[in-house]
């Protein structure tokens, strides 16, 4: 059984890294990546329909960024990693 101070410390750490609040995965525009390529990546990483993937692609293209996913911190980090693996410019930010 954990000591009270240890539990407090754990809670404090989780609060500090924001594990209990939602995080956005944001994709930023990069004029080099082909639009068809970006759409393909969204479909493969998030399982989006073609329509949804294209909507996000156009949002990135027109507005410079698109929030492509929102949820828990760990999953958000995983998606950013996947997007970096496809050389898309992606970041996570607090929702």
């Amino acid at each position, binding site marked *: 059984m954990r000591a009270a101070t240890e539990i407090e410390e754990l809670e404090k750490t989780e609060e500090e*890294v924001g594990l209990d609040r939602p995080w956005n995965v944001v994709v930023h525009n*990069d*004029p*080099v*990546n*082909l639009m*068809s*390529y970006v*759409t*393909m990546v969204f*479909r493969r990483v998030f399982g989006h329909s*073609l329509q949804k993937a294209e909507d996000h692609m156009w949002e990135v293209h027109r507005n410079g960024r698109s929030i492509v996913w929102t949820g828990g911190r760990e999953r958000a*980090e995983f998606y*950013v*990693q996947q997007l*970096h*693996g*496809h*050389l898309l*410019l*992606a*970041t*996570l*930010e*607090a929702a």
Partner: protein
Amino acid sequence: MEFDATSADRLKMREIPPVLGELLREIPTVGNLDCPKVAERFFPSPTSDQTEETLREDWKAFVEPGLHEAFFDARQVVEADLRGMAEEGGFFTLTIPRSHVMAWIHALNQARLALVTHHELTMDESASWPPEVIATQDDWLRLQMGFYERILGWLVELVEPPPSAE
């Protein structure tokens, strides 16, 4: 040059002129990660939040090595396929197993991003394909960018066919 996707297990590029054959051979090596600008583009920060220093440090320590390896693996697959490029009558034929298509997509995307970043090309410069005459290094780069874009577009369409083709 002819693209052939009729086989169930392999793709073929036929009648490749020598100059384009040379550009194909450069795909695995053009992504020069010794260039700091290219390395920065290939391994961007996962956050712009200044308070997330720990995430940035962890990313460098644990995520970037895996990405490095994945990028390298894709280029290795392409390099191996290119070793099988056959010459006949002054033109080349390249066979790409369908199972290698994603590696080709990744390697071509790496090559395009590296070229633009390293040479600081504007999109106008990189999108003006094909140059009528190859007289300068910039013309060569535009040819290279345009050629890689053609192949990449073709391969992406094979992986994710447009609705009318589905």
